[in-house]
């Protein structure tokens, strides 16, 4: 039994190892992407350009403007004229314009005396960028005079991520995205290439059982993926400072399961497609969209319409990312993510089962 399995693994490994260029590319890509995205991607809104229209630049006006200019979230563009507002917003030079009322000082006095008054400041925002628009209004409102007393009533604590790093949220997402796509691209050509080149016929007439052919194709890729996994975990921990408080072995074993799942998904694609082009386009281009959009990497799942919230359950990356977030950042142990683990295990079984079935069907 073993005798004709190992030579097969060797044959497949040689196939892959001899292609040094592809090997190098496969190893480097996930690592570079991980580092770049880990540092660069953030959904936080800052460096908002703000311009001011102030008919009278009194002390009180300058005081408010100074407060805005000194805020970390804003970059003060300068004073502009009323008729420039539209042009500056349209060309994207500024995102917000604060328009002060002409009798700002008097109205402020009225307000502090408790008398009714017309608004003293109007914020005109470029709402074509919805995120920046709503964030800048929230920031501005908390800078304005008279809001300090409200904040004093509360004491807030940010659990698990006190420095509010966005890498904490994105690293698990990027891992989920990269592994499923890279692994699927690796195995998706394996069987279909043999079909195209014609060597499949040779394999089929050999006495080796199809299960062995399929597994022999997965093993070398599995080894490569493990190397990538180790590199990524090291980088995430030492370079990106992701805590991994739930225990490295838990994270490691769940990731191994996810790698097997992704490799089997690639195999499945390979057994159902007729050409390499189709196999590669499905595993890279077609899969990228649902994985990116439906697994909660950037867009939160709880915002989806009900139907898509349910649909997201069939995306393996969704389960992996949720589990890794819990283990890496919240410090949950492997036992705490048994549900996600079971789902991933079930999906792997289905992928392997179906690809074996499809492969066997081809034989008859």
């Amino acid at each position: 039994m073993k005798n004709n399995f190992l030579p097969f693994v060797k044959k497949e490994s040689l196939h892959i190892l001899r292609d040094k260029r592809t090997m190098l590319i496969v190893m480097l890509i996930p690592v570079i992407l991980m580092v770049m995205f880990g540092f660069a991607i953030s959904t936080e809104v800052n460096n908002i350009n703000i311009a001011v229209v102030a008919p009278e630049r009194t002390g009180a006006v300058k005081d408010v403007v100074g407060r805005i200019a000194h805020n970390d979230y804003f970059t003060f563009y300068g004073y502009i004229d009323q008729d420039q507002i539209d042009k500056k917003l349209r060309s994207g030079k500024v995102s917000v314009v604060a328009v002060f009322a002409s009798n700002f000082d008097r109205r402020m006095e009225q307000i502090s005396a408790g008398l009714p008054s017309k608004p003293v400041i109007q914020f005109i925002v470029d709402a074509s960028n919805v995120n920046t628009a709503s964030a800048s209004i929230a920031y501005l409102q908390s800078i304005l005079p008279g809001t300090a007393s409200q904040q004093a009533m509360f004491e807030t604590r940010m659990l698990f991520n006190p420095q509010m790093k966005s890498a904490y949220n994105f690293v698990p997402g990027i891992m989920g995205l990269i592994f499923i796509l890279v692994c699927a691209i690796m195995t998706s050509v394996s069987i279909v290439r043999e079909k195209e080149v014609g060597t499949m016929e040779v394999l089929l007439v050999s006495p080796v059982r199809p299960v062995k052919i399929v597994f022999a194709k997965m093993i070398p890729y599995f080894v490569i993926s493990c190397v990538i996994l180790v590199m990524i975990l090291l980088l995430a921990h030492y370079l990106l400072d992701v805590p991994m408080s739930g225990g490295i072995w838990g994270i490691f074993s769940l990731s191994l399961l996810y790698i097997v799942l992704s490799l089997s998904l690639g195999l499945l694609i390979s057994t159902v497609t007729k050409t390499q082009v189709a196999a590669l386009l499905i595993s890279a281009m077609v899969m990228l969209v649902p994985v990116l959009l439906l697994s909660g990497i950037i867009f939160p799942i709880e915002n989806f319409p009900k139907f898509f919230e349910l649909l997201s359950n069939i995306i393996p990356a969704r389960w992996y990312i949720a589990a890794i977030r819990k283990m890496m950042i919240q410090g949950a142990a492997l036992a705490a993510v048994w549900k996600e683990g079971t789902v991933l295990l079930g999906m792997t079984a289905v992928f392997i089962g179906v690809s074996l079935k499809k492969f066997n069907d081809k034989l008859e």
Partner: protein
Amino acid sequence: MRAFIVLLQKEFTQIRRNSFLPKLIVAFPVIVMLIAPLLMTMDVRNVNVAVVDLDRSTTSHRIVSHIKASEYLSFVGATAEFDLALRDLEKGKVDVIVQIPNYFERDMAVATAEKISITANAVNAIKALIGTQYLVQTIARTVVELRGEKTPNQLSELVTVQNRFNPTLNYRHYMIPALMIMIFILMCGFLPALSIVGEKETGTMEQINVTPVSRLMFILSKLLPYWIIGIFVLTMAMIVAHLVYGLIPVGSVGLIYFGAVLFILIISGFSLTVANFSDTMQQTMFVMFFFIMIFMLMSGLLTPIDSMPAWAQKITFILPPRYFVDILRSVYLKGTSLVEQWYNFAALGVFTVIFNILAAVTYRKQA
């Protein structure tokens, strides 16, 4: 010229005869345009709040009912023990815990009163930050209301806000142009590369190499079909955006097509360059995957460039999509003119020239 037409015919026949490509070219953009806008929203809504009510007073009940009424917060439950709520937070059922201290109502007016404590799960930092802000506002309003005080500095009296260009703050309208660019990047990035490497792998490239067809002509015959497909895809995407999401470009449609024409040429030229350097389809796919991920995640399509660290912002200047994202969003939503966007168009022009010359130069007829 005749040779060129024959070459083009060959390309289209190859695409048409493929069992998979024609379906992909039509179905992919339509499905993505129909579904993706529904998913792409970063609004912070449905923040799950648990209340630990140690006070059990009129005030605390009023706070709970205000949380229930808020459109952004959803009330999960009230417990008497913080640890129970914390366990739910760890499981992900709760995002924020509010603890109202004992004697809060009695001591409310005193400066030394015990504070309301808010504990947020900050794994998703943005959600924690904005969710906490909503809560603070909601509770502060309740307290002010109960005190029966007239607060002169109510924000609504102090400021007004005008949302230009997208008065309803519709997130979909912001994302639809980005989505169109995503489709371009994916289709015009992957397809041309595969078509060239495909010829290398099946050996038909050898046959082309021995014909008198010039390098430039061959590369052009590979570019043009995807250029036509790209224009077709843009038209379909714009129709879907209009019919389904009611989004009509504010600016000139001609300008959108002009930008798209340049952008498609850039991406497919780049794709061909990568293909010229690769030996197998799989290799091409890995390399293209690498660049496409960078194009999609770092050029301001999904997350803002302004929030990146300075070094990453510098990298974005060599990413062509960065310029087109800016163009498409401003023309579509704000009606920006060519004059106001000249630098972005100039950048696209430069990239078009660079990548297409590169594609022609790196294609060698020698094996």
